C-alpha cells in the first residue's frame, strides 16, 4: 500500500506548485534569462570572458563594495532603531497605536521619488536639522542610511513586533521566577524565540537596501552608485548588455547567498513557539524605564517618519494665494498644468487601484498556492522553491522590464501591448510578501486538524477550504493588504515596462515632478498625499482586520 499514496501526495504538491512554478518560469525566469543570455551570447557563442573583464574592473569593484557595505550598515542601523519600536508596538498599549502603526508603514509603500524629496526636507539644506542645529546630511552617506531606516522601519516593526506580541510572556516570567534577571530572562527566553523573525526582517531589509535605487540617486548624489543603479545605466542608458548581464548574475549570486544564510538561521532556531492572543500581552507602560522607552520610540518615529510625510502634506496645501485646496482641485481637471495629461491626474488613482487590485488577485492566487504547497513538506525542493519566490525582490526592475520586452514578444505570449503586463510585474513583487505572510500561519495550523477533516471524509482540496482557509483568514487579509499597497506604490517595474498609456499614481507623480512650474509641483505633492492616504487607508483596514479576526500564529511581516 506504499507507493500510490506517496505518489499521490507528491502529485498534489506538484499540482499546487504547478501554477506558481509556471508563473515564475514564464514571467520571471524566462524574461530574465532571455535578457541575460542576449548579453552574454554573441553570434551564438557564450562570451564568458566578459565575466572576468567586468569583475576585475576597479570601478565595478567599487560599486560592489559600496553596495554591500551600505546595505549592511543600513540593516544594522534599521535594526538598532526599529527593534525598540517593535517592542513598544508589541508590548505597550498607548492611544493611537493602530494609526501610528499604519503611518510608519506608509514610507515602505511610498514611491522613492516622492519620499526621497520629502526626506530632503528633513536632512537637506534648510531642512529641520539644518534649522535646528545647522546639520546637513544630504549628499552624504548618512542621508542614504537614514532614508533606508525611514523606508524599512515598518518591515522590522511588523515582522518582529508581530511575533513578539504573540509570545507568551509567562515563559519570561518563568525564567524570572527561576532566578534570571530581567535582561537575562529576555536574552535567554525571548531573544531566541525572536531570532527567526529578526533574521527574516534583517534579510528583507538587506535585500531592499542592497537593491536600493531611487534613494541612492536622490539623496546620495552622483558620487554614490549601487549595483542596481549601475545595472540601470548599463541597460537603459548605455545598452551595454554584456556588462549588465554580468552584474545581474553577480546580484543573483549575492541574493542567493543571502537567502541560503537566512534559511540556515531560521532552520537552526526553528522551534515550536507558544503563541497567545496579542490582545493579552500588551499593557500600559509601567515605571520610568518603560515610559522613557515609549517616548524615545515615539520621538524617533515622529522625527524619522512623520516629519517627512508632514512636509509632503504641507507642501501640497501651500497653494497660490493661500488657497489650500488649489492643487487638489487642479488634479481633478484634465486641463491641469495646461494639459500635462491627456487624462486628469485623479484618473491615475483609478488606474492605480485597478492595477493594484489585479496584481493583488494574481499575487494571492500564486502566493497562496505556493504557500499551500510549501506547508505540506519542508524538503530541500520546497526550500529551493521558497528561495526562488524571493528572487524577484533582488532583481533589478529594469532587467525584468527589458526581459519582458524581448521574451514576451510572440503570440500567444505577446503581452507587450496588454494592460496585464503591469499587474503581472507588480505581482512578482507581491508574491514573496503573500508567501512570507501566510506560510508561518499555515505551518502553525496543527497537521492533525487536517487529518481529522480527512478522516471525516474531506478531500485534500476540501481540507484546505474547510480547515486552512478559515484559520488563515487574517493572514490572507494581511497578505492582500501588503500586496495591494506594494503594487500601489510600485514604480520601477511599471516605468520600465512598455505599456499602454494609463499612468499609475507613482508614474503620474514622477511625470508631474519632471515638469517645471509651481502648479505642477504642487499637484505632484497633492497627488503624493493622495497616494499616501490611499495606502494608509488600506493599512488601517488591515489593522481593523487584525483586531477583529482572532487566529493563532504570527505573520512574518
Amino acid at each position, binding site marked *: 500500500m506504499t507507493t500510490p499514496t506517496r505518489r499521490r501526495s507528491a502529485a498534489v504538491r506538484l499540482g499546487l506548485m504547478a*501554477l506558481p512554478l509556471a*508563473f515564475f518560469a514564464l514571467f520571471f525566469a524566462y524574461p530574465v534569462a532571455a535578457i541575460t543570455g*542576449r548579453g552574454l551570447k554573441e553570434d551564438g557563442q557564450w562570451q564568458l570572458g566578459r565575466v572576468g573583464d567586468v569583475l576585475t574592473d576597479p570601478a565595478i569593484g567599487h560599486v560592489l563594495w559600496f553596495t554591500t557595505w551600505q546595505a549592511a550598515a543600513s540593516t544594522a542601523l534599521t535594526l538598532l532603531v526599529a527593534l525598540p519600536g517593535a517592542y513598544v508596538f508589541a508590548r505597550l498599549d498607548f492611544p493611537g497605536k493602530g494609526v501610528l502603526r499604519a503611518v510608519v508603514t506608509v514610507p515602505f509603500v511610498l514611491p522613492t521619488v516622492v519620499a526621497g*524629496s520629502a526626506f*530632503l526636507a528633513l536632512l*537637506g539644506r*534648510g*531642512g529641520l536639522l539644518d534649522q535646528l542645529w545647522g546639520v546637513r546630511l544630504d549628499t552624504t552617506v548618512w542621508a542614504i542610511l537614514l532614508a533606508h531606516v525611514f523606508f524599512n522601519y515598518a518591515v522590522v516593526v511588523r515582522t518582529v513586533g508581530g511575533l513578539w506580541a504573540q509570545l507568551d510572556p509567562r515563559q519570561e516570567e518563568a525564567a524570572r521566577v527561576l532566578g534570571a534577571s530581567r535582561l537575562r530572562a529576555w536574552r535567554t527566553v525571548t531573544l531566541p524565540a525572536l531570532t527567526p523573525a529578526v533574521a527574516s526582517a534583517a534579510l528583507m531589509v538587506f535585500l531592499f537596501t542592497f537593491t536600493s535605487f531611487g534613494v541612492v*540617486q*536622490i539623496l546620495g*548624489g*552622483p*558620487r554614490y552608485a549601487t549595483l542596481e543603479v549601475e545595472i540601470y*545605466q548599463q*541597460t*537603459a*542608458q548605455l*545598452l551595454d548588455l554584456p556588462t549588465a548581464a554580468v552584474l545581474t548574475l553577480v546580484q543573483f549570486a549575492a541574493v542567493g547567498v543571502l537567502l541560503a544564510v537566512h534559511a540556515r538561521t531560521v532552520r537552526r532556531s526553528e522551534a515550536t513557539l507558544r503563541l497567545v492572543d496579542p490582545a493579552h500581552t500588551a499593557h500600559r507602560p509601567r515605571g520610568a524605564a518603560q515610559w522613557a522607552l515609549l517616548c524615545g520610540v515615539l520621538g524617533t518615529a515622529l522625527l524619522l517618519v512623520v516629519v517627512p510625510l508632514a512636509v509632503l502634506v504641507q507642501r501640497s496645501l501651500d497653494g*497660490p494665494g493661500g488657497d489650500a485646496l488649489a492643487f487638489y482641485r*487642479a488634479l481633478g481637471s*484634465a486641463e491641469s*498644468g*495646461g*494639459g500635462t*495629461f*491627456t*487624462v486628469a491626474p485623479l484618473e491615475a488613482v483609478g*488606474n492605480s*487601484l*485597478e492595477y493594484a*487590485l489585479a496584481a493583488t*488577485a*494574481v499575487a494571492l*492566487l500564486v502566493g497562496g498556492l505556493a504557500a499551500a504547497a510549501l506547508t505540506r513538506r519542508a524538503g530541500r525542493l520546497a526550500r529551493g522553491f521558497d528561495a526562488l519566490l524571493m528572487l524577484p525582490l533582488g532583481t533589478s526592475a*529594469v532587467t525584468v*522590464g*527589458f526581459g519582458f*520586452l*524581448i521574451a514576451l*514578444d510572440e503570440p*500567444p*505570449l*505577446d*503581452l*507587450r*501591448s*496588454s*494592460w*496585464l503586463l503591469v499587474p503581472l510585474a507588480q505581482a512578482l513583487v507581491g508574491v514573496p510578501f503573500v508567501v512570507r505572510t501566510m506560510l508561518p500561519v499555515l505551518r502553525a495550523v496543527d497537521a492533525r486538524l487536517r487529518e481529522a477533516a480527512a478522516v471525516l471524509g474531506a478531500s485534500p482540496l476540501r481540507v484546505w477550504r474547510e480547515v486552512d482557509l478559515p484559520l488563515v483568514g487574517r493572514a490572507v487579509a494581511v497578505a492582500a493588504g501588503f500586496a495591494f499597497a506594494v503594487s500601489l506604490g510600485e514604480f520601477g517595474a511599471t516605468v*520600465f515596462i*512598455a505599456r*499602454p498609456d*494609463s499612468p499609475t499614481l507613482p508614474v503620474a507623480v514622477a*511625470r508631474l*515632478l519632471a515638469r*517645471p*512650474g*509651481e*502648479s505642477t*509641483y504642487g499637484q505632484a505633492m497633492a497627488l503624493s498625499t493622495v497616494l499616501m492616504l490611499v495606502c494608509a487607508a488600506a493599512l488601517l483596514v488591515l489593522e481593523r482586520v487584525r483586531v477583529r479576526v482572532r487566529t493563532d500564529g504570527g505573520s512574518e511581516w
Partner: protein
Amino acid sequence: MNTTLRRAVVATAAVALGLPALAACGGSGDSAAGSGSGDGDKTVRLVSHDSFVASKDVLDEFTKETGYKVQVIKGGDAGAAVNQAILSKSHPQGDVFFGVDNTLLSRALDKDLFTPYEAKGLDRVPARLQLDAGKHRVTPVDFGDICVNYDRAYFADKKLDPPRTFADLVKPEYKDLLVTENAKTSSPGLAFQLGTIAAYGDDTWQDYWKQLKDNGVEVVDGWEQAYNSRFSGSAAGRKAGGDKPLVVSYASSPPAEVMGVTPAPAEAPTGVATGTCFRQIEFTGLLKGAKNTKGGQALIDFLLGKRFQEDMPLQMFVNPAAQDARLPELFTKYGAAIPEPGTMDPQRIAEHRDEWIKKWSSLVLK
C-alpha cells in the same frame, strides 16, 4: 468599480487558465488604452518615452481624418525607450517610434530600426533640423534647447548681471552658483556637457570643466533634484529653500514657470543664458517590421501636421519643427530666442559618448 472588479477577475482567471486566456484578454481588457493589437488595420501603435503627451482631441482628430486609432505604448525615459526599440527590433512593439533625439540618433540608425519614409510637409521643416535629410529614415518633429537658467530675483537683488555664456560661468562673481545634472544619468546633464564640447572642442573642454569645478559647480543626479530642490528661481525650489540661482534646464522652463499663474506676471521669474545652449532635436520614424505601414505613414504625416505641431509646445514644452506652426503666447511672451545653439553631428556623439562620459565622471565626480 465594475471595471476594476472585472480586471481583477480577468487577471486571476488568466493566470489560472494559462496562456490562451492571457493572450485573448490582452486585447479586450482595457478601454482606456484603446483596442489592443487585435485589429491591426484600424489601429496605429505609437511607441514612445514617458514624456510623450498629446491632447486627446488632437488624437481624436487624427482618427476622424484617417480612420486609424492611435494606441500609445510608453516605456521609460528617452534613452530606455530607444534601447527597448533596439532590443525588440525583431518583433517591434508598434508601427511608429517617436522620441529618438540627436544624442541617440546614430545608435538607432546604426541598428537599422527604421524604414525610410518621406513625410508630407517636410518642406516646412528647416534644413538644419533635418539630420537624416538624404535617406528620410527619421523625420524631425520638435526641438528644444538645454541652457543655463537663472533666478531673476537673485541677480536683481545682488545688482549683478546674469551670465550669458559658458565663459561667464567660470568667472569669480558666479562662484558656487551653478547646479547641473550628472551626465551619466540625466539627459539635460549630458546635453550640457555636449554643449561645452561643441563650444570648446575635443582638446580644451576638460580644461573648461576643471575651471567650472574650481568655480564650485555642483552636480546632482537628476533634473528633478536640481530644478525642484536646489534652484532658487523655480516655484518648487523656492519652497524647498533652493540655494543655487543658476541651473541647467530647458529654454522652455521660464514659460512653464508662468503657466497657470494668475494674474500673469510681466516677465518670467527665471531667464535663460542664451550662450550656454545645446540643441536637442526629436525625431520620429516608421519601425521596420511594422504591421500597419500605411497607418504609420499617416501618423508620421500627422505628427508633422499643423494641428499636432501647434498642440505640442504646451504638452511637452518643446518647439515645433514646422516653421508655419504658430507658437502659443506663453512661449512668445516669456520664452527666449536662442540664436546660435550648440549642435553636434550625431555620428560624432555616438562615437565618443561613452568615452566623454567616462572622462567627465572622473574629472567632475571624483
